[in-house]
C-alpha cells in the first residue's frame, strides 16, 4: 500500500504563492472579508509562513510553504473525542466534516497550527459560488477543516484506473499545489516506493522535517536552502 508524502525544496521556492491560490480554488476554501482576515481568521490549507532572520545589514526574509504535515503520529487524531479526524491506511490525515463537533481540540493540539475553524458559514462573493469544485464538499459553519493532500484527486485517479483495469500509475495522483508550482518546488508520491522521486529526495542530506523533535513523524519533507536548516524552531 502506498504511503503518500511530499518533498518541498526550499532552494527552488520563489514564494510566488501559486500553490496557495491553487489550493484555495481546488478545495473550495472560502475567502474572508477583510475585517475577518485582519483578525487572523483566514483559512489556508496551504500557506506561506514568513520568518525573519538576522538584523539589518544581514537581514533575510524566508518563506516556508506549509500544508498539513500529514504526520504518521498525528497529535490531532488522538485527541479528537468523536473520531472526526483520522489517518487513512495510506497515511493521509483526513477530516470528517459531517461528524466534527467543533470543539477545536485538534486545532490546539496541532503543533504546526495547520488546522482551521469555520467561524461563520462560508461565503463566496460575486459569481464565485458557481465556480466551486464539485469534487470537494463545502464545509458548514462550526467545523474544523484542513489540507487533505487533495484526497478527492486520489479517489478520482483510482476510480479511473479501476475502470481501465490497471494499477494506479505514479504521478497520476497529485495535489493541486504540487501541480500548480511553476518552479517545481514540490514533489509528491509514494514514500514506500524506493524508486519514486519523492522517496529518493526525502533521503537527501538536505532533508529535514518541521519540529522533528516532537516525534510526530511528518510526511512532508523539506530540503534545506543553502546552509539554512529549519529543523529546529526559529
Amino acid at each position, binding site marked *: 500500500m502506498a504511503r503518500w508524502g511530499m518533498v518541498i525544496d526550499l532552494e527552488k521556492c520563489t514564494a510566488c504563492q501559486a500553490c496557495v491560490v491553487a489550493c484555495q480554488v481546488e478545495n473550495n476554501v472560502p475567502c474572508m472579508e477583510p475585517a475577518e482576515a485582519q*483578525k487572523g481568521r483566514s483559512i489556508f490549507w496551504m500557506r506561506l509562513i514568513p520568518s525573519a532572520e538576522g538584523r539589518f545589514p544581514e537581514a533575510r526574509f524566508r518563506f516556508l510553504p506549509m500544508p498539513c504535515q500529514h504526520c504518521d503520529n498525528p497529535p490531532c487524531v488522538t485527541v479528537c473525542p468523536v473520531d472526526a479526524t483520522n489517518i487513512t491506511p495510506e497515511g493521509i490525515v483526513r477530516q470528517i466534516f459531517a461528524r466534527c*463537533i*467543533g470543539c477545536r481540540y485538534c486545532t490546539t493540539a496541532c*503543533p504546526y497550527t495547520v488546522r482551521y475553524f*469555520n467561524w461563520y458559514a462560508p461565503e463566496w462573493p460575486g459569481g464565485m459560488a458557481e465556480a466551486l469544485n464539485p469534487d470537494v464538499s463545502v464545509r*458548514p459553519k462550526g467545523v474544523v477543516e484542513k489540507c487533505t493532500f487533495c484526497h478527492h484527486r486520489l479517489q478520482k485517479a483510482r476510480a479511473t484506473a479501476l475502470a481501465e483495469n490497471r494499477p494506479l500509475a505514479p504521478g497520476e495522483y497529485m495535489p493541486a499545489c504540487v501541480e500548480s508550482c511553476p518552479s517545481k518546488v514540490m514533489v509528491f508520491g509514494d514514500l514506500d516506493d524506493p524508486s519514486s522521486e519523492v522517496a529518493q529526495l526525502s533521503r537527501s542530506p538536505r532533508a529535514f522535517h518541521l519540529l522533528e523533535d516532537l516525534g510526530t513523524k511528518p510526511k512532508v519533507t523539506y530540503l534545506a536552502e543553502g546552509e539554512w536548516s529549519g529543523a529546529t524552531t526559529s
Partner: protein
Amino acid sequence: MAQQLAERVAVPAQEMDEALFQPIEKTSRRFYITVAILLSFTLLFVVAYLWQLRSGLGVTGLTVPVYWGIYITNFVFFIGISHAGTLISAILRLCHAEWRRPITRAAEVITVMVLFFGAGSVIVDMGRPDRALNVMLHPNFRSPLLWDVCSISVYLTASMVYLYLPLIPDLALLRDRGQKRKRFYRWLALGWTGTERQKHLLERVIAVMAILVIPIAVSVHTVVSWVFSMTVQPLWHSTIFGPYFVVGAIFSGIAALIIALAIIRSVYHLEAYLKKIHFNNLSLLLLVMALLWFYFTFAEHLTTYYGGGPDEMQILTSKLTGPYAPFFWAMGLCCFVVPVLILAIRYFRTITGTVVASSFIVVGMWLERYIIVVPSLSKPRLLPSQVFYHPSWVELFITLGFFSTFILLYVLFTKFFPIVSVWEIQEGREKSLEEVRERVATYLPDPAKAT
C-alpha cells in the same frame, strides 16, 4: 458546654430547629428581587447564546491561533468549584469531623449545580452543539476530552446521589410538617419513617458513597488537566498538572463554599448554626490549600524557567513580563499574597476577613485558569502571531449568565430544601457528644491492669 446543652434540650425538639425551615416556608420580597435580578442576567445569556448559535463562533473574540478562550477557562473553573462540595463533605464525614454538620448540605449543592455549568461551558464552546451526542455515537477513547465526558458524568451522578441520600430524612420532616408541597415531599421522601433499620441502612449507604466519591472527584479534575497536559504544547505538557489542578480545584472550591455559607448565614439569619468556629476551621483549611497552591505554582514555573527551553520560555515570558503579565501577577496577588496575609493572622481571620480572602481567591483562581489556557495558544511554534485575545460581548454575557444562573439555581434550592441538614444537626445534638466522649476515651492509655 454541658450547661448550654441542657438549656437547649429544654426546648421541645420540634420547635428547636424552626429557623432551618423558615427559608422554605416564608418568602420575603427580597427573595423575589434577587431572583428577578439573577433572571435578567440569565436572559442576557440566552440572547447572547442564540446570537452565537445563529451566526457562528465568529461572534467571539477567538481566532487563529487562540482557539480556546474564556469558555474553556470557565469550564475548568466551574469544574474546580465543584470540588468544594462533595469532596470536602465526604472527607469531613469520613473523618467524623463533628463541625461538618451545618455545612455539608450547602457544599454538596454547590457541586451538583456548578457541574451543569462546567459541562455547559464545553457545549457553549462547541461549533456544532447539535452534534454533541456524537461523543456517544462515535467515541474515541484515546481522547482526553472523552475521558472528561465519562468522568464528569460519573461525578455528576454520584454527587446527585450523595446530595439526595442525606436529604431523605429532611424531606420526611418537611412532609410531616405538611405546610407546603406535601405530595412533592412525600414522593421524594421514599416513605422514610426514621426506624432504626432505615437509619442504619442510610448511614451505611452514605458512608459507601462518601468513600466512592473521593476517587471520582480526584479523577475528574485530573482528567480536566489532562486535556491540556496530554498535548505537546509548551507549558501545557506538564506532569504535575493533575495534582496541581486538583489542589487548585479544592482551593477555589472551599473559597466558594465560604462565600456561600456567609451569604446563607446573613440572609436566612442562621448565625446560631453557622458559627464563627465553622468559618475559622474552613479558613484554616483554605490557608493550607493556599500554601499548597503556591508550592505547585512555584515548582511548575521554576522548572520551566530553569530548563529554559525556547518554546517554553516564549510563553513564560509572555506571562511574567509580556502581555499576560497583569493577569499573572494579579493571580499571584489574589491567590496567595492577600489570602495568606488575611488567613494567617488571627486578628483578620474573622468571618468578614475570610469572606474577603475567599472572594480574592475565587477571582484569582479564575485568572489562573485563564493564564493556563490562553497564553500557551497565543504563541505557536511556527506561525508568527501577534494576536492578543479579547473576549467579545457575547462571551462576557454568556459567562455572566452562567454565574448568575448558577446562583439562581442555588437560591431556588434553598427555597425547596433545608440548606442546613436538620436531621444531622439533631443527631449531633442527641448522639455525638456521647460518641465523641467515647471515641476520645479510646485514644487515652488504658488504665493499668491490676495484676
